[in-house]
């Protein structure tokens, strides 16, 4: 059906609808009084109140009125336009009226939900209604711009969430660029030993997926790389990726590790990052056995063939002082390149999935637990590595002094649910602490004490898991640990005393233990603030990436075309990360499959007759959408580049720039409307 465009001289006929939203609005705003008041305003043909405007009958009501009463403007006073503007535009369009004749008034989020005085709220509802009634006569029929969506997808972060999203999209035939700042994908999950509640080994389920990513024809895997620049918008993002030098030519390296054996350092002597410094590695190393890509790298900080220290620009200088036994071992493969420099790749993608994960809480911020002071205090991730068969001790649970612990304390909520550090519950710590209790007992038959504030085990099979562990004879003590200190009777042995109040028996406990494990919480990545800026995302006050709607758009962001997966949005366990990654992939897929995005036609244009050619607008445009026609001495806006901020409009001294949907007259009439006297 072709949209009805009202004729020039046709009188304005406004239909006004105020929604009760059940009692959400009607409970605080006298909707009948508002509707009655609006009926008295100029140009209003119909003024109604209705229980749920967004319901089918509500929308039908508008459509019927458009047909029967020849309405040519619609004002809906209900919830936020960010929620339902599209609903009412579509309803209007279905009745044959241009959708941009609709104006929404936000009287729920901005009024009934935040005010306590019915008279005040009603007065405000009237003022806002009046503003819209005065605004809509200036509305123009507009057309939605359709922009094609590039089918390629960028995924930032190669943990389990990024891996799952990448495989989902790649299996569907989409080209995926997976960028990870580390030398291998796998993320935190690759460091875990076993996973709760099934106690299956993390790598056993993860490594096949990692390998699938590595060999997938539709996945460009760029590890040891970072996104350097993001330009563009949904459908057409231009991305620059910085590939940091690993001094190994990825295409030529076969992962044989003969260079590692041949290194002039006979023994590994440098802290191994993957094992959190608990193990040692050589200057040339494979991050871990199942690393994907299975490519070694050279650490220029310690390799003898590089000068010590970084250059001011962050690069390293080759010293050529080493015998380069590694190069000899590599032989004809010629995969080692000491002169490698960082490389920039430019790609165009239509959608982006952020899967940048989390970091663990630094337990040094809670000094009373003695982390970093007493050698036998570990964080949970270190225990995961120690227990892991491929870890620094090959799965034997021994402490730094080489002994097996006989008594172990596990402290929950370290850096979680704490006013002084992080207020949030990190969600996974109770469960992984129970898992570690089980594993520690299994490995050493030690006495294990779990100190918890509340035992939080929600989710499928989790409570059963808790019961199972509890029945294994763990000591579960409800109480927050106040202090960890060296055992005064046994100090030289490195024994510690854990002091806590058992809040169920109201007794102070002082339990001597050999080892303390801190159940550290989850925190946003340290570079999440930079990423947020780079990708134009929002963060919650805690620093997690903010989803568009906590319930109904949990993987969308406020930036169209960018989706969230995994812990970058908030702490979650593996099943939830995977589920969210699948959701993010399908959201991206939905955009790609549709083939185009519809863009709000809120761009600006220049009234050439009135433009004085002063050029004040040109430097203001961040998108260089404004150019100057030297012949006619007029500015011109390129509509394809204009994003619709309206900064130039506000600056034009002759008022010759117009922004669609936000024209000067529209805003002036709103100002006039909100300030006009109302009858209550």
């Amino acid at each position, binding site marked *: 059906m072709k949209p009805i465009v009202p004729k020039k001289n046709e009188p304005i006929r406004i239909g006004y609808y105020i929604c009760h939203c059940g009692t959400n609005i009607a409970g605080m705003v006298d909707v009948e009084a508002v509707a009655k008041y609006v009926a008295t305003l100029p140009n209003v043909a119909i003024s109604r109140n209705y229980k749920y405007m967004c319901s089918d009958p509500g929308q039908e009501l508008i459509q019927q009125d458009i047909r029967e009463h020849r309405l040519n403007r619609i004002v809906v006073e209900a919830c936020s336009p960010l929620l339902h503007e599209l609903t009412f535009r579509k309803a209007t369009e279905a009745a044959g009226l241009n959708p941009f004749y609709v104006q929404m008034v936000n009287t*729920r989020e901005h009024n009934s939900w935040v005010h306590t005085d019915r008279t005040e709220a009603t007065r405000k509802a009237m003022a806002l209604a009046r503003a819209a009634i005065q605004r809509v006569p200036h509305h123009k029929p507009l057309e939605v711009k359709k922009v094609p969506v590039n089918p390629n997808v960028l995924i930032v972060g190669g943990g389990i969430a990024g891996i799952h999203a990448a495989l989902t999209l790649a299996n569907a035939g989409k080209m995926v660029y997976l960028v990870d700042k580390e030398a291998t994908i796998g993320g935190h999950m690759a460091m875990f030993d076993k996973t709760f509640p099934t106690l299956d080994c993390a790598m056993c389920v993860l490594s096949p997926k990692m390998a699938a990513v590595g060999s997938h024809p539709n996945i460009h895997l760029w590890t040891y790389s970072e996104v350097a620049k993001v330009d563009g918008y949904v459908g057409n993002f231009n991305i620059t990726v910085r590939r940091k030098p690993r001094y190994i030519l990825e295409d030529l390296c076969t992962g044989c590790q003969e260079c590692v054996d041949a290194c002039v350092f006979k023994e590994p002597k440098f802290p191994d990052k993957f094992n959190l410094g608990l193990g040692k590695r050589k200057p040339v190393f494979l991050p871990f056995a199942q690393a994907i890509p299975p490519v070694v790298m050279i650490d220029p900080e310690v390799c003898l063939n590089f000068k010590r220290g970084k250059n001011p620009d962050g690069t390293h200088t080759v010293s050529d002082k080493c015998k380069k036994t590694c190069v000899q071992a590599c032989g004809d493969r010629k995969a080692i390149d000491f002169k490698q420099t960082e490389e920039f790749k430019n790609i165009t993608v239509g959608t982006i999935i952020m899967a940048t994960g989390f970091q663990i809480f630094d337990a040094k911020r809670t000094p009373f637990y003695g982390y970093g002071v007493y050698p036998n205090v570990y964080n949970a991730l270190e225990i995961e590595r120690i227990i892991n068969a491929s870890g620094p001790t090959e799965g034997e649970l021994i402490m730094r002094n080489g002994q097996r612990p006989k008594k172990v304390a596990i402290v929950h909520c370290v850096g979680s649910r704490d006013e002084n550090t992080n207020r949030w519950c990190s969600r996974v710590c109770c469960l992984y602490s129970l898992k570690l209790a089980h594993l520690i007992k299994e490995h050493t038959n030690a006495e294990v004490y779990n100190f918890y504030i509340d035992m939080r085990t929600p989710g499928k099979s989790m409570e059963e898991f808790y019961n199972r562990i509890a029945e294994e004879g763990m000591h579960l003590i409800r109480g927050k640990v106040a202090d960890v200190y060296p055992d005064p009777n046994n100090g030289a042995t490195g024994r510690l005393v854990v002091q806590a109040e058992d809040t169920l028996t109201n007794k102070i406990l002082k339990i001597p233990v050999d080892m303390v494990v801190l159940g550290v919480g989850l925190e946003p990545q340290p570079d999440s603030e930079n990423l947020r800026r780079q990708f134009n995302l*929002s963060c919650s006050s805690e620093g997690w990436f903010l989803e568009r709607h906590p319930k109904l758009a949990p993987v969308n962001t406020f930036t169209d075309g960018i989706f969230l997966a995994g812990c970058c949005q908030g702490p979650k366990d593996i099943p939830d990360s995977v589920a969210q990654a699948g959701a993010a992939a399908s959201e991206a897929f939905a955009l790609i499959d549709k083939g185009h995005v519809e863009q709000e036609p809120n761009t600006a244009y220049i009234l050439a007759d009135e433009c004085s050619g002063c050029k004040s607008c040109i430097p203001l445009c961040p998108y260089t959408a404004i150019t100057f026609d030297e012949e006619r001495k007029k500015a011109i806006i390129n509509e394809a580049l204009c994003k619709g901020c309206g900064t130039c409009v506000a600056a034009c001294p002759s008022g010759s720039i117009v922004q669609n949907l936000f024209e000067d007259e529209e805003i002036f009439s709103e100002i006039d409307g909100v*300030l006009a006297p109302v009858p209550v």
Partner: protein
Amino acid sequence: MTNQTKPSASGETWTPRIVAFFCNWCTYTAADLAGVSRMKHAANARVIRLMCSGRVDPQFIVEALAKGADGVLIGGCHPNDCHYVEGNYKCLRRYQMLKRMIADMGIEPERLRLEWISAAEGEKVKRVINEMTETLTQLGPLGLPQKFDEWDREMEHFAEHVAAREAATGSACPEHGGKPQTLETAHA
């Protein structure tokens, strides 16, 4: 947390009216968040949604004050967070200029406020609106429309007075030696 009210000269309760220009991406969303989180605050602000704080034309602010607003609040994204890269900086520049200008017009600069409120800061929307309502309540009504009326009446009265004088003497004002009379000399 209720509305700040203060009896005006006429005995009716007066409560400040704030026109708020919020950018679509950060502050408007934050105000929505305040709503979803049921953060109760003063009902004195009337929000007008713009895509960017860079769209805030100084004329909007002057117009709002002239039409009877007691204060104007602008909300935009934090520096470096603008959805349109740097519209908020453009807004800041205009705000600085206006702040000085309205002071020269005899309007208290506190009546104009610019705040950076991110989409996550529902709490800040509540705080800023409450604070601003409080400040404006202390300052009392601005009442520019009434002042305009008053000044118009004064001018009319003055014009009548001059006309009457001219009719009586049959010539231009003799007190000023025939020089054209200015507003200043007339009031002197």
